[in-house]
């Protein structure tokens, strides 16, 4: 497969950073105060991806199950941190719930794909497991952040209604359920929109990469379909898990609702 890959030289790679000048010029012209963020994002993009490349080279060479698992846990920890960073306002103490939801949903789906569909051997083959897990994690972290944000903002907006539900004898979950439902729906929307647009509006990342690397477009398309389906499954699992665990943070153990007025934020 390497035969078809056209390598990019380092001068061209660093030259491509000039594309970020477009964003920089817009930020400067509109006084968006985003110049620092643009520089940091560009530098992080270079460093993180090159570091990942080096790590994968090392992993492919000396791969062992524990080393691959360690990398996957590290990626999940980073995904958790990024997801929490995207939640507006004060993040509640939901780190364990977010990590659990992202890690378990992504790993369950990625392992099913590796074992049952791709038939990788061994199961921890880093060349297959790591990129697949990375794609799943990237999508679940975005969906999780959207769902959590929606869950808490919807619960705040429904403060009066939640109080009325509790006053009529509902449990915490029954009072929060309309918000949980809304949060799951909003978390699923991006994944479903991507699935609907793929192949018409865009050639998704994995398929593009494989085609650029010289793979047969039909094989690339089949891989991409599997990826989109697994992303959808992992996303659903992650947001259902996080919504059904995180809503409790807005209640006391005795079932009192912590409305914005009571939270002292």
């Amino acid at each position, binding site marked *: 497969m390497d035969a078809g890959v056209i390598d990019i030289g380092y001068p061209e790679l660093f030259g491509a950073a000039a594309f970020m000048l477009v964003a920089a010029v817009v930020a400067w012209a509109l006084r968006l105060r985003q110049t620092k963020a643009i520089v940091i994002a560009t530098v992080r993009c270079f460093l993180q991806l090159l570091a990942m490349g080096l790590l994968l080279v090392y992993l492919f060479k000396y791969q062992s199950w524990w080393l691959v698992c360690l990398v996957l846990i590290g990626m999940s920890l980073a995904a958790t941190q990024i997801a929490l960073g995207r939640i507006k306002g004060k993040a509640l103490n939901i780190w364990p719930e977010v990590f659990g939801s992202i890690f378990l949903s992504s790993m369950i789906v990625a392992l099913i794909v590796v074992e049952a569909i791709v038939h990788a051997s061994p199961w921890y083959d880093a060349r297959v497991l790591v990129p697949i897990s990375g794609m799943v994690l990237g999508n679940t972290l975005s969906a999780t952040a959207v769902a959590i944000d929606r869950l808490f903002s919807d619960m705040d907006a429904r403060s*009066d*209604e939640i*109080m*009325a*539900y*509790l*006053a*009529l*004898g*509902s*449990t915490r979950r*029954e009072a929060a359920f309309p918000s949980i439902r809304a949060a799951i729906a909003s978390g699923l929307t991006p994944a479903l929109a991507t699935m609907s647009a793929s192949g018409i509006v865009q050639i998704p990342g994995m398929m593009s990469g494989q085609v650029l690397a010289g793979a047969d477009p039909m094989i690339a398309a089949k891989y991409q379909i599997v990826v989109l389906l697994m992303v959808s499954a992992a996303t659903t699992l992650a947001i259902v898990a996080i919504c059904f665990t995180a809503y409790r943070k807005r209640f*006391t153990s*005795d*079932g*009192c*609702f*912590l409305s914005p007025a*009571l939270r*002292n934020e």
Partner: protein
Amino acid sequence: MALFEARGLTVSYRRNGISFKPFDDISFELLEGQIVDLVGPSGSGKSSLLCACARLLPEAIGTLALKGVDSSSFSAEEWRRLICYVPQKPTVIAGTVRDNLLLPWSFRVRRNDNPPNDKTLCSLMDEASLGDVSLDRDAAQLSGGELARVALLRAFATKPDVFLLDEVEAALDNDSARSVSNLTRKLIGNNTACLRIRHRPPDGVADKMFRLENGKIFQLECAEARI
């Protein structure tokens, strides 16, 4: 024996670094068949007191008892099934008037109770002068006065032991408010009691009146409540 007892109720909390204590060491009781008005200046903690009685306020401490049984013997849901708080702002869910009236029966705490049938609901609607409102009507189309009465009927339909009414007539015109007062008197049976916050002049329905001010509760003369 009192139907409902509150002993040493205290609420204190901090907001933006400042400590508040709306009320401190309050005790009172409600007898069967009694309607008690709770009055006091705005911000004196009347709503907090009602929420504390319904175990809806996390910062409340003190002892609550129903028919002599301590509230700690009940789960929060079971307690609120028996001690029903009706907030000032009527909350309606998307759906018909029937959906709203039957909302409490969608909760686990009433899974073994049979929901009232249409005949019972219609007779309740008649009691509240809502006989001309169909159970199939979209609740979003009801007026403010109709919404307040539907929210009140929803609470009455659950037949709790104690009603805690948080100024449910606040947004109503005088006629609607009178209608709600009469409805309350009519539906409070011999085995129930009601504590209601009011800002209007006494309507002659209350048996007793409490005033909450400066963190303490005082009983006013019955005559004042019977005016």
